[in-house]
């Protein structure tokens, strides 16, 4: 297999890991964002938390593996991206830690104040993590102040401006919508009715932001559309994406929440794919000088390592998928509380 083909395969595999993470942890984060607004009493809060209880940890592993795979396949990209987003990523870590311990510790003590603190922690960390992921994505999309030798020259403030912030809002609204549909599938009775009422406003917020971000990207990130323009067949991705977005309210209206959840997953997959198409063949575009950019070619590992990693992936992925399916199957159906719950 040629070096360039291997490189491309690894770019695609990383995209797949990113899609997997965004779909799976997307609903976890969405559930966290909705948690204080949807659940009215302690039992409902526990139901909401336990709807993702057995699953969130495995979902987060997709991000960990994405990081590891990026490190292995494109070390220069890993090093440059992570050191450029220094404070943003430390905040993201804070959020991921906050989410984990809020879930784990909340229901361990019988005190209203104790539980309140972790409820707030669960919401804040989920919300901020979703937002930061969008902000980082927005920055990567539009390019960053990368100087010679892959040294980031911009400050923290140059990462905070309207475009990434808008993308951050989009991810929050998308994950909230995705999480709401998930909660609708997992809950019953009054709680479910409340979730149902939230879905429409969440959908309209998301749809509005989706239009805004599309226009903003077209205007602010001209190179994003160039790849699509040079491979017109790729127009199918944004077209399907738009159809999928519209299909969410339709599926809910038809009373097919499972179909709606599948559709919102596809919206996330399409957005992540568009993101990958837009940045290709760069990992980080330099706004100072194009030749300073981190590309697939200058970031990749040696051909031997890419091959070894591919073998690891070919052995590993079927295992991962099979036990993911087993776990989701075991915890299918409406969420109930028992002695083992959070």
């Amino acid at each position: 297999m040629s070096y360039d083909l291997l490189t491309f395969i690894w770019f695609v595999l990383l995209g797949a890991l990113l899609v997997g993470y965004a779909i799976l942890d997307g609903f976890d984060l969405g559930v966290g964002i909705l948690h204080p607004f949807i659940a009215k009493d302690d039992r409902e809060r526990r139901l909401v938390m336990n709807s993702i209880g057995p699953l969130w940890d495995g979902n987060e592993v997709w991000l960990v593996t994405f990081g590891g795979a990026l490190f292995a396949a494109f070390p220069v990209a890993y090093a440059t991206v992570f050191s450029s987003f220094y404070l943003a990523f430390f905040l993201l870590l804070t959020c991921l830690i906050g989410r984990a311990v809020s879930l784990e510790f909340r229901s361990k003590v019988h005190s209203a104040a104790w539980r309140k603190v972790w409820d707030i922690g669960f919401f804040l960390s989920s919300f901020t993590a979703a937002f930061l992921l969008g902000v980082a994505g927005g920055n990567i999309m539009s390019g960053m102040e990368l100087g010679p030798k892959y040294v980031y020259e911009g400050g923290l403030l140059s990462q905070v401006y309207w475009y990434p912030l808008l993308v951050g809002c989009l991810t929050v609204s998308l994950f909230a919508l995705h999480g709401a549909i998930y909660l609708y599938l997992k809950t019953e009775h009054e709680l479910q009715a409340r979730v149902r009422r939230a879905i429409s406003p969440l959908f309209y917020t998301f749809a509005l932001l989706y239009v805004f971000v599309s226009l903003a990207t077209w205007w602010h990130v001209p190179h994003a559309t160039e790849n699509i323009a040079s491979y017109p067949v790729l127009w199918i991705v944004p077209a399907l994406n738009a159809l999928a977005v519209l299909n969410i309210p339709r599926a809910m209206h038809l009373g097919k929440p499972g179909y709606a959840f599948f559709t919102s997953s596809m919206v996330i997959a399409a957005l992540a794919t568009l993101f990958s198409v837009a940045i290709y063949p760069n990992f980080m575009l330099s706004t100072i000088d194009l030749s300073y950019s981190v590309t697939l070619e200058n970031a990749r590992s040696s051909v031997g390592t890419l091959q070894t990693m591919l073998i690891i992936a070919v052995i590993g992925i079927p295992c991962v998928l099979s036990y993911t399916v087993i776990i989701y199957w075991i915890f299918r159906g409406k969420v109930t509380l028992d002695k083992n719950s959070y």
Partner: protein
Amino acid sequence: MDVEILSRLQFAGTIMFHYLFPPLSIGLGLQLFLCELAYFRTRNPAWEAAARFWTRVFAVNFAMGVATGIVMEFEFGTNWAAYSRFVGDVFGSALAAEGIFAFFLESGFLAVLVFGWDRVGPRMHLFSTLMVFLGSMFSAVWIVIANSWQQTPAGYHIVWQDVQGELIPRAEVTSFWGMVFNPSSVDRLTHTLIGAFVLGAFFVASVCSYYLLKNKHQEVAKRCLSIALPTAMAFTLLAAITGHDSAKKLVETQPAKLAAMEAHFHTSDEPTGLTLFGWPDAESETIHFGVTVPYLLSLMVYNDPTKPVPAMDQIPEDERPPVWLPFQTFHLMVGLGTMMIGVAALACLFWYRGIYGQSRWLMWAIVFMPVAAMTANQAGWITAEVGRQPWIVYPSVQDGVEMMGLRTADGLSESVTAEQVLSSIILFGIIYSMLFAVWVFVLNNKIQHGPESAEELTEYKRNLESDSMSKNFARSGKLLGGDMMDEGTR
């Protein structure tokens, strides 16, 4: 302070905090699996109560390991970008293998282990427990391989890459298995895993001894002790053996580290003695208040009491590690290890004579043993990591060709400033202090609450069964989980 010191402080702080949890997860995982295996074979509800109880403790600890572990993966990139570019081709594959083979396995089956007690049958549950335990071991395998490669690199060569007109070196894998089975990985891996098993065994023994002292949960406690004490005995002994093997090889692979660990400053033609304790002073190259046993180091390293061991003066001055810290932590680890062998042997002896439950002093000693085990684990790693300075990747010779190493100072992120690192240290200092307090508080809660008795558990399962038969799952959720004062005590 400069970026290097701050970044090293940050890495040391976050990795040491992280390392409180995974060894306990691995060690407790083994104990949990053995308890559940005993339940599976005997179907005795007391064993099930034990397994369910250790699952709850395990879950709290595991969550902390996950939460603090992801920080480590990010830090390679955020703080050590130059290092990441240098080692990515090698280190990255091990880390990715860890993600695919270990993390998915453990986090997936953890769900069944923790939440599946009343959802899957005993066979599936036992299988899940085993998978979680194996997953946690696999993750140790890959990360220790990656670390060992940095200490004793193998299976690679240095390639100079043209980066915008300047040639920059990086390590590239030439033989994957050569990288995996580098000269130190097997020794260090077994020693690390055994250290974790020791901690897990003493942890279980400690909690159970505490219950005996307080006259609580007697039945469960005695059953668990019958597993924990013999395993503690076996693994403390194995720790000594693997530790000895590991240290012995240093004379070949990392003589500077060995010299630092033993505060061995001057080479001579005389046989080398072993300093039992003392206060090394690297400035004047002497050991104050030292007590040295003649011939012993030569004997231990070469199995020959007369052959001299090379000292620090053989190492170029700018390649010498600090001495005081590796010396003290190494001796602390060995001292604690020896003590643990003694305590475990005594406890086993008393146990088989049936007088363990009467010797309160011994039970109190066992109660505090997890602190010793945890300290020994940390001290061992401090020795390993400080002793390899100033290298982040050791230089080596591959097939007669000298390969350059990477100095710690050259591994930093060029774009990160001291202020940024300082602010992240402060942020994580606050978060980790709070986490630690909460962890101790919740763990203590779990332990004070203790396992159900066998009767309580049988009653609970009977209720669950009748509930499911009346197909009232929604209401059973309310009944079992609705009352805040009654539930959420997992």
